[in-house]
């Protein structure tokens, strides 16, 4: 009875790995020629080069492809073929060239989310760190990446500290839980807006829906956990931020989003790892410490 599901799980993980590997290896074939620029077009104004573009097809209207030239100048276009080596060897599934920066950001976020959650799985099930919310660390870490600086951590810490004091004050008002959480969210919004104002708008990229909700949720959880003692809630907060920091460190390596964009089939490996982690029944790192007394005890001579 125990063997069949194990066999199924291993088979599922294996087939995911095989499928992803196949896709990865087949990749160069997927590359459509149209995504690869073949023509380099250079514009000369009065003999001086003033612009260059690389295109896969020669545009119908060359003038429209460049900014308007200075009045009265003589315009010459030079069209050359690009040798194969100068084109990127992997255009990938999601080509940076064809996506608007906004789309690119969304797709990058989506592609980075599963590996980030895998990281959180490892921290929680193999290391044994506690966190507020299952995937709050992953979302927070990716949100830090959007701000692209330790400013993100600063913003989060400021808001949690201020929010905690606020939550303490709100407690005195004896509000019902749902409106109180809504009020807390409003206050977090006001604080974020003030922070953005203070940083002259540079912090505006912190504002995405996710982190906002996460922050409010974290304050509420932090508060309700305080009952069990500040030490454990501060510990959980520290562990959450630590995990978010690791996710951030992982996601800011430029090669990581680049790889994921070019090879989304990597998600197959991520999913296979998640399946295998779901079957990990060994000790967590923190448990080795927790149960260390049981390692050194003399073996009691009990039955069994």
């Amino acid at each position, binding site marked *: 009875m125990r063997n069949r599901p194990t066999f199924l799980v291993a088979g599922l993980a294996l087939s995911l790995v095989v499928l992803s590997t196949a896709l990865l290896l087949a990749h160069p074939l997927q590359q459509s020629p149209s995504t690869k620029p073949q023509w380099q077009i250079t514009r000369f104004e009065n003999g001086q080069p003033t612009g260059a573009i690389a295109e896969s097809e020669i545009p119908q209207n060359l003038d429209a492809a460049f900014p308007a030239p200075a009045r009265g100048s003589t315009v010459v276009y030079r069209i050359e073929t690009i040798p194969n080596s100068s084109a990127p060897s992997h255009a990938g599934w999601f080509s940076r060239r064809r996506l608007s920066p906004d789309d690119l950001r969304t797709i990058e976020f989506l592609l980075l989310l599963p590996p980030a959650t895998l990281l959180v799985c490892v921290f929680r*099930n193999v290391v*044994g760190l506690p966190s507020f919310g299952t995937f709050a660390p992953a979302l927070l870490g990716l949100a830090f990446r959007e701000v692209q600086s330790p400013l993100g951590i600063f913003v989060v810490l400021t808001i949690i500290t201020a929010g905690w004091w606020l939550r303490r004050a709100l407690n005195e008002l*004896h509000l*019902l*839980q*749902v409106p109180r959480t809504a009020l807390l969210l409003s206050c977090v919004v006001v604080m974020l807006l003030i922070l953005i104002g203070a940083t002259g708008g540079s912090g505006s990229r912190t504002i995405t829906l996710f982190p906002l909700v996460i922050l409010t949720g974290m304050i509420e959880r932090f508060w*309700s956990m305080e*009952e*069990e*003692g500040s030490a*454990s809630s501060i510990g959980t907060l520290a562990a959450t931020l630590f995990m978010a920091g690791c996710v951030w460190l992982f996601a800011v390596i430029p090669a990581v989003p680049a790889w994921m964009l070019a090879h989304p089939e990597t998600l197959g490996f991520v999913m296979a790892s998640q399946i295998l982690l779901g*079957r*990990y*029944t*060994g*000790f*967590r*790192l923190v*448990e*080795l*410490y*927790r*149960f*260390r*007394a*049981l*390692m050194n*005890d003399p*073996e*009691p001579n*009990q*039955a*069994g």
Partner: protein
Amino acid sequence: MGWLFGGTRLRQRGVIGINRRNAECILRRNPRASIPIVDDKLMMAELCARIGIPTPRILGVIESHADLESLPEMLADHSDFVVKPARGAGGRGILVVLSRQGNRFRAANGRWIDLYGLRAHASDALTGAFSLRGLADRVLVQRRVRTHPIFAPIAPRGVADIRIIVYRFEPAMAMLRLPTLASNGRANLHQGGIGVGVDLQTGRTHHALFRDKSIDRHPDTGQPILDWTIPQWPTIIDMARKTARAVGLGMVGIDIVIDENEGPLLLEANARPGLAIQLANRSGLRRAMAEIDRDADER
């Protein structure tokens, strides 16, 4: 840092970790449909009443915010009681009132709380502030358990409770949890309580753990903790077995207290019992579970 490499040794000693508990015991032995019953203290109390397991008397139930009006009436004749969210997770939201002066109540943590504060607490609990996933909840007001005087020397504050892990409907391991001054009336090990290993056959305490160290005397009273025999032990074991059968969970932690007047009372059942019991007993759960498995397969 030697502990980093002690995993094999722990496994040999039959210690199980959270991952193994979740995968091999809870996912495998605990049918999902049975879990809501143990997670809801009111449903659990009803079930216990049906199968004849004694529980602390319920003085009143608050089902909705409208019921909050009846709170003063409910408490009129009582000066000490416990307010509990029915689905409170991990002992959260439990308010123990020791005494009252008019409409001011002294809580176990030493604070005074007025009727308004009590109402606010119950209101929070109703909206699910303490429940597992923030689900709307009910609140029960229970008679406060008075610990059996035999425990006075080793449980001067709070309530001593007995945790029995029942695996495949047979008791696997037992522990007595004692509150200390440091644990603020609570008996959880990680909050500074004492975990005392109890021999399943005899009900005798054989090992005690306080703050990661083996002890033989209570840190507050200096009284010896070991070699006590818990009164009415066979009754307690029987209650645990019977409750586990009734809830239908193959891996369940049963919490029992001994009241000075009413004897052993079932406090609650837990579908995800903690693993500190192994530390208190200085022994791995897996060994006990293997024995039960062997007996079950022979039958």
